[in-house]
């Protein structure tokens, strides 16, 4: 269980600021969905937490700054699933999941017996025994996505960052992947921060939504508060209808400009 706190975070690519003065606290064990139009800074925010871009301000995990931690310690706290993960065709599923143990292996070390056992355990729990010995190149999109999540789980990091994790999947596999993350979050008390395109899915799985626009938070709160037709119209520039189902699910339906 780990909390994350952003304090006046700013990220620049050259002279262009993509995140500025971003502050937010993410409670331990919660799922925060980052939404916002393309270029709003969702990916940059996740990349900052993963230590892949330089930033000013501070990201604090469990009370101490991430920038003070070593590279491998940081990697063992934060598992990062990029938008388009690279899965080498000739690598087997098991080898790929094993890469998740990297932060725990010393510079000149090699995976020990217990590391292998741990990876086998992850593979078993996610029901990946059949695809583990196969090459990544022959697997379907859904199978690949489950392996990517398995690799993140194998790091045993308490914080999981997902960048549009299901953008390449069909609706059924999207749901399967999110259900899997949700199950793991409950079982392991993971803190999940995910950038998401699909607003309905974002609303279904997140405890809390943060709407980013031009590098800063413009709306932050419960799903009901953030997913309002007015807010979405203002920042996405779209006309939508927001339905509330009986079970509390918020459904966002785009509307045609001309009927």
């Amino acid at each position, binding site marked *: 269980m780990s909390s994350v706190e952003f304090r006046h975070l700013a990220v620049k690519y050259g002279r262009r600021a993509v995140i500025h003065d971003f502050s937010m606290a993410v409670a331990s064990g919660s799922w925060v969905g980052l939404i916002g139009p393309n270029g709003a800074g969702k990916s940059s925010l996740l990349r900052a937490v*993963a*230590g*892949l871009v330089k930033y000013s301000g501070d990201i604090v995990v469990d009370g101490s700054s991430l920038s003070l931690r070593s*590279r*491998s*310690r*940081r*990697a*063992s706290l*934060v598992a*990062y699933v*990029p938008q388009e*993960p*690279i*899965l*080498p065709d*000739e*690598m087997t599923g098991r*080898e*790929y999941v094993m*890469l*998740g143990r*990297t*932060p725990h*292996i010393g510079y*000149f*070390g*090699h995976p020990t017996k217990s590391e292998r056992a741990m990876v086998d355990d992850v593979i078993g729990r996610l029901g990946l025994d059949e695809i583990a010995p196969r090459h990544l190149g022959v697997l379907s999109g859904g199978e690949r996505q489950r392996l990517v999540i398995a690799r993140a789980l194998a*790091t045993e990091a308490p914080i999981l960052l997902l960048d549009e994790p299901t953008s390449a999947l069909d609706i059924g596999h999207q749901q399967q992947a999110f259900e899997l993350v949700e199950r793991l979050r409950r079982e392991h008390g993971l803190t999940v921060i995910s950038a998401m395109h699909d607003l309905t899915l974002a609303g279904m799985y997140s405890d809390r939504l943060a709407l980013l626009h031009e590098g800063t938070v413009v709306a932050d709160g419960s799903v009901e508060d953030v997913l309002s037709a007015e807010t979405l119209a203002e920042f996405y520039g779209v006309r939508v209808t927001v339905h509330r189902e009986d079970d509390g699910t918020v459904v966002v339906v785009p509307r045609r400009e001309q009927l």
Partner: protein
Amino acid sequence: MSLSALVLVVIACVGAMTGPAGPEWWRVPLALLERIPGFGESGLGISSGVSPLEWSIIWDIRMPRVVLAGIVGATLSLGGASYQGVFRNPLVDPYLLGAAAGGGLGATIIFTTVGSDRLDWPVDPVPLVAFVFALGTVTLTYLVGASFGGMRTSSTLVLAGVAMVSLTTAIQTFILQRNSDVVRVVYNWILGRLATASWGDVVLVLPYVALSTTVLLFHRRHLDVLRVGDEEAAALGIPVARVRLTVVAAATLGTAAVVAVSGLIGFVGLVVPHMVRLMAGSTYRVVIPLAVTVGGAFLILADIPGRTLSSPAEVPIGVVTAFIGAPFFIILLRTRQVSR
């Protein structure tokens, strides 16, 4: 792994058994065994019946050549596998960043300036200057690549390598064109040769090759992590730029050393790693150590027809590697595709 080591030893013995003059072939392994403590007359009583002259042919002429071929083949294929891993590109070879072109330029300069006077020198300057030029060229490539952000993307480094290789080759061509009398000597050097191998050459390259091999063996796990890309490797806690610099430096050191003593032997660094992958899978945990043994065995084997086919003349080793390697590789590729 142990199987490939055994194959390497057997092939090395075959290498020592073949050649003009010398004792009958079957006496050679006996002669080698006889000199291992405990196997000779005082121990198991093995006696080969090889005369001192014949032994001198085995030990002073054939063995250094076999051992050097093994070292050169192992180092080039290990360098190739490492370069392919660190650049995530299956088409690169250890000469990519200018080790061969630089070595060639260095040798050319010595052949044109000092010429045959070099034979009077206490130490042959050709390997030393070739070694220094090979390392210098790769260092320049690295500095040029780094100044355009090459630490972050490997493609800038590859492009810098292409530029440096053309520049170095152009200078070499210019020098050769003005000194046409040395063209033949330089050309011979470029084609690669193991014919003049002596224990001195082996001793000369061994420290660099040993250092290079040790470093690369220790980085094979990092090469596997790099397969998922710089960004994800960094997110997994790998210091990507440092690993890339270390691996390139180590692979270059070994390559420069073997280029200095054996010239440019093509094909080994590019194709042997792929042979290994086709035979044993693609994980660097396996590819890196196997590249050493298979590369060594491959070049010892390739050297045998090189010195026997048109004996006593020599077929350049670079020609033989391509002649043996290309069809073998095509067959391997075909059988792999059928079995899929």
